[in-house]
């Protein structure tokens, strides 16, 4: 998902080893009872580290996620679509902001988190390393990518860390229009000219498999699932969420009259689920490792925005310091 790199190994010390066993037991009991953990509460170092990583990856994904869709704001084919897309991309910035704020309560500043993204140390969702080549990609992203994100985010509204859970509640509420606007774009294209319908089919062909990869590697290979489930940082496994997504999405695609790019896709009467073919995990690994079609462009765009903004942020801080100095001088004068 937006935090799929979490499935990699945690390089810190093992959870709980040097820590007070009694406090750890109390913490685990609180989490097991679905009590919320707040920033000031005691927490195991590994919980803090894992959460900081998960929330900041989620934030980075929102921020990098502004780029592929932002790519089409100036080219949106109607003013109505333009307004919706602009509002959606802006929402993603807002969601990144809420999430950075939640991560900051764990003791890492936004500046440090952004630094980790720009230096390549922190990861973001693999999905945003794919290009948006036609207008239909904006529809496919809303429908599939936001659809997949919602599957993941709704359970996170009940996650154990209070600030994360509260950010997710706000995000889920605001995102409710995102998937619908994407599906509406697809529907309009599918009901349009043959060229438009072909555009929609091409977008589905290119986004379907990357969307399935968003849920991360299969449970058997996922390094962190057990602990994250116990800590209520994660509430369903990768495979559970992926299956939920496929079951929900396939009928929507058929309604559009589109064909999924998977010859093995079939409905299994016995289980009541849609069965799908093998995901190309090598492609997933390559994209995460930096070899996706747009990894370089995405990071370069973020680095450029950051570097071009340095003088602006410096100016704003310098002005604030001048004001404080003037105020102090005026107070001094008044006191004399």
């Amino acid at each position: 998902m937006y935090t799929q790199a979490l499935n990699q190994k945690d390089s810190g010390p093992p959870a709980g080893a040097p820590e007070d066993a009694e406090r750890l037991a109390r913490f685990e009991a609180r989490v097991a009872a679905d009590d919320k953990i707040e920033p000031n509460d005691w927490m195991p170092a590994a919980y803090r580290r894992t959460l900081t990583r998960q929330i900041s990856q989620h934030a980075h994904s929102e921020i990098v996620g502004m780029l592929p869709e932002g790519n089409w704001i100036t080219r949106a084919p109607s003013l109505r679509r333009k307004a919706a897309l602009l509002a959606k991309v802006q929402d993603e910035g807002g969601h990144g902001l809420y999430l950075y704020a939640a991560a900051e309560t764990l003791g890492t500043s936004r500046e440090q988190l952004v630094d980790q993204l720009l230096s390549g140390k922190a990861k973001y969702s693999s999905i945003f390393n794919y290009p948006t080549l036609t207008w239909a990609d904006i529809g496919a992203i809303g429908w599939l990518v936001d659809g997949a994100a919602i599957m993941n985010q709704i359970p996170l509204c009940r996650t154990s860390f209070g600030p994360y859970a509260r950010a997710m509640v706000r995000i889920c509420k605001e995102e409710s229009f995102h998937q619908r606007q994407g599906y509406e774009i697809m529907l309009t294209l599918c009901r349009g000219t043959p060229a438009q319908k072909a555009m929609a089919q091409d977008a589905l062909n290119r986004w379907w498999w990357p969307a399935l990869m968003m849920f991360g590697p299969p449970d058997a290979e996922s390094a962190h699932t057990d602990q994250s489930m116990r800590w209520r940082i994660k509430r369903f496994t990768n495979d559970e969420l992926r299956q939920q997504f496929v079951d929900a999405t396939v009928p929507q695609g058929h309604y559009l009259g589109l064909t999924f790019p998977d010859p093995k896709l079939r409905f299994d009467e016995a289980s009541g689920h849609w069965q799908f073919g093998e995901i190309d995990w090598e492609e997933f690994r390559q994209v995460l490792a930096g070899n996706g079609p747009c990894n370089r462009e995405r990071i370069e765009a973020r680095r450029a925005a950051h570097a071009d903004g340095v003088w602006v942020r410096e100016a704003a801080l310098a002005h604030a310091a001048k004001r404080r100095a003037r105020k102090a001088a005026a107070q001094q004068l008044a006191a004399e």
Partner: protein
Amino acid sequence: MPEAHMPVWEVFIRARAGLAHRHAGSVHAPDAEMALQAARDTYTRRGEGLSIWVVPSAAITASDPVDKGSLFEPTADKIYRHPTFYEVPDEVGHM
């Protein structure tokens, strides 16, 4: 090398007339005026607010969770502060 920190501000929003300001989240801004604008642009995009407070995060003093017992548990047995502690016969009606 991370750059200088932009101050963090806590944002409180009054959603409707008559309600108290409620914590909505936080923003980064160089000063109070820009924090107010950032709060408006971030947290009232869907008409959620009538009034905004911004407070430097550093200005907030929070109670320590370790003190939870001493601060909040002593009130737990003071049931006489609650209306249901007192018996009023049904015939008297709602009070």
